[in-house]
């Protein structure tokens, strides 16, 4: 499955430990310096899709988790999710490297 860029962000936030919706939104927002805001409708559509294809799964709340709301469900990336993300990252890295080569200023201009 090809990942959209928002899929990548969500997967990345679910790699280290389980998070609930609000946690994912906050993590992505702080990581992107506030430029990436996910609204509920959008976020849960992404989660629904990733759940459907098995890249993430519901998870037990982490032990130190806040127990404020029983309606909050936690999600975490599955091994398949990690593998897919790894492939996507490799693809992205190739693009990044190519772009960097081409964007580098022409050599031999030190006068």
């Amino acid at each position: 499955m090809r990942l959209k860029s928002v899929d990548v962000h969500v997967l990345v936030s679910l790699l280290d430990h389980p998070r609930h919706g609000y946690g994912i939104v906050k993590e992505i927002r702080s990581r992107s310096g506030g430029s990436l805001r996910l609204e509920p409708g959008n976020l849960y559509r992404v989660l629904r899709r990733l759940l459907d294809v098995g890249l993430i799964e519901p998870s037990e709340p982490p032990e130190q988790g806040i127990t404020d709301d029983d309606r909050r469900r936690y999600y975490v990336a599955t091994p398949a999710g990690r593998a897919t993300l790894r492939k996507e990252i490799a693809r992205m890295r190739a693009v990044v490297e190519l772009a960097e080569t081409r964007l580098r200023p022409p050599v031999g201009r030190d006068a």
Partner: protein
Amino acid sequence: MTRPQAPGLGVALAAYRAMLRLFPRRFRDSFGGEAEGLFRDLYVEAYQRSGFSGVIAHLGRTVINTLRHGPAERWALRRNREVYQGLGRRLGPDFRFAWRTLRRAPGFTLTAVLTLALGMGATIALYSMVSGVLVQPLPYPEADRLVQLWESNKATERSKEGPSPLNVRDWRGSTTAIEDLAAWYLTSGTFRDDGVAEENRSAQVTTSFFRVLGVAPALGRDFLDDEGSPYGPLILSHPFWLRVFGGDPGVIGRTMELSGARYEVVGVMPEGFEFPDPGVQYWLAWDFDAVYGPRPETRTWRFLQTVARLSLGTRVSDAKAELSAVHRALGERYPDANRGWEVEVTRLHDEVVSEARATLLLALGAVAALLLLACANVANLLLARASHRTREVSLRQALGAGRRQLLRQLTVEHLLLAFMAGVAGLLIGWTLLELVGVMDAGQIPRLAEVAIDGPVLLFAGGLVVATSLLFGLAPAVRLIAPDGSRSMLVSGRVAGPAGDWMRKGLVAVQIGLALALLVGAGLFAESFARLRTADLGFAPSGVLTFRVSLDSQRIDGQEDIARYYDALLERLGTLPGVVSAGAAQTLPVNPVGNDFSRPYRSAGSTEAPADAATVALRIATPGYFRAAGMRFLSGGPFPAGLNPSEPGVAVINETLARRLWPGRDPVGETLEIDFRQGWGPYRVTGVIQDVMHRGARSVAQEEAYLSHSQSPYLAMSLVLRTSGDPDAVTEEARRTVLTQPPGQPGHHFVSFDDLIADNTAADAFLALFLALFAATSLVLAAAGTYGVVAYGVAARRREFGIRLALGAEAGGLRRSVTRETLALAAVGVAGGLVLVLSLGRVLESLLYQVDAWAPWTLGILSVAMLVVAALAGLLSARPITRLDPAASLRAD
């Protein structure tokens, strides 16, 4: 455990919960609660961070987000679930069941299908006409880039005149907005071959003509740029090529005699190419610049037709702006000819279909009303059936059929009905189109291009679905109404109050629509009658008209032209049955002929031609006035046999007389007209009553009739007043013309009455079709009323029985039923009147001397509608008088 709170959160949360309904149910079940939670968290956070401005930003983002992702998720889920396949599997048995149900009630099915098919057929026919004529582009490549160019003069109230040749020449190549430009002039030519001589409609066209349109000849080649100097070669129309040359490809390269000259045939146009009109038999290459270029005075001769192709990406308004700048410069260079004249640019498509637009749209509206009425009618049939079927439905519900399942079953049944009606409707629509085509009803342009094709079939499919929903709505609501399950216990039949008002409402709708159609038909019938009996200023009955187009090659000089027509008219005047004969270069209400105007001024004025008002010139023989039945208000026709060298004479109409000599008798006075040799004096010999040259709707304009012997014309329209049937004289007249040396054939033999009929063809079309639709709608509405009242009477048999047993009179009961029907009809009539009154102004533009709000028409037709409804009520209440109280009480 406390949840985070912030002001307004409760309301916002409730609103958000409602908005979440945009998402599919499955999504809401899984994530609805979580999404609400997240919404709450973000709300509180936004509030804590930036107060109410943060909250508003959050709400805004959420609304946009939900609007976008809810429907998207619905769509995504739908695709995944392969709903359609599943639906197909479930619908199969439904269709079989629906088919069996409908077959079990053949009377009902046939009535419903026929009723709907009438409405749908008419709608399909009108839709394909509207689509083919008004919507589809003209049959030329990138036809939206084709425009026509005109000259208009606000000061002298001349609008959209064909531009003059010298102006067209100067426009061509002057702006980048126009890729290329072509001009044409419709004329007629005499084709001669092996003793055959026939007069045909033809067009003189610039060599760019076919290139601008983007159509190449099917055989041979297009004109070359340096051809047409000034006339020839020729390109033939497909029908002419088939008829005269038997479709022989060897015709290319042959020469053909046309109006006394020989031209090479270089091409044959493809089948179906008929521009500027279907009558054109051949196109003659023409370099108008070679003809008019050396004559600067022709800059005021505004008569050319033009078609231009806009450059890629140029808008009509841009072209107009650029061309206007060019034209302004021309106005400064040639002020006498061009002052006050502006350029107009219009789409070719609009010009081709302009006159048919209102007619077609109105007919489409009428047809839509008929279809609505048919839907209301069938809805009532279904409602009546639904009450009988309540038992079946309750049984199925009791056996576990869900409401959803029942609804699906009903929908399928209605779809099947509508589909059968759609198939029959296609047949009816096709027949109607053929009829319209055969009758050439309304002389609608592009009718040959109208066909029931893919898009029309698609429309018919949509119509099937839409009508099935429309007529199926009320019955569906009724049949699965919540109280349906109880009905089985009470009785087999239920005429509950809910079903009752639905049925009655639908009857009122039918009566209202029928009244609207009746009023429409009445108005247009009256308008048409007035048009046909309108005083056009002459007496058309019993008059035969035809045209003779002399070859300039076969006649020597102006005097010979006059001599030819004098001799011909004298012979024609002695034919048996002919009372008098005359000729003019153009006839009223006649599309063939050479209709033109020239500037005029009162004697002694120094006005320049560009500033002067114009007068329509008619070149006539002295006998023309009597033959055409025109009425002199003063003076009389000019004398016969005048010489061009003698002082000019003219007969003028009352409008011109009023302009120049208000309140005085103009006979003996002189006016000046800029014609042929510049300004010249013309002495008035008589004043005639105004003639409505372009039909009853036109406004009389200034007219002057000049003596044909003083200004001879090659092509003339002849008028023979007969003592009986003009058609009886046709053959003799045709022979007389052909045997008059040099053997010129006459053409366009037609009675004046037929010319007027052609002129009012669109009105005849509307009057006829509206009458047809109104009659159909009246029958449907009457039948619908009868059915509902009769049903009500049958359902109330028990009640009536009791009342009879208690001493009520049958007549009284019958009267009360009729009264109820009348009340119902009154509601419908009121609605219909509101509809008519709100549409009145739209209709008015198409009516002739008829007020759309004519109280008499409205009153009489409303009363007639009420009478019809009362009769239907009276008839359907008849069973009451035959009711046996005892028997009806014993019945269930």
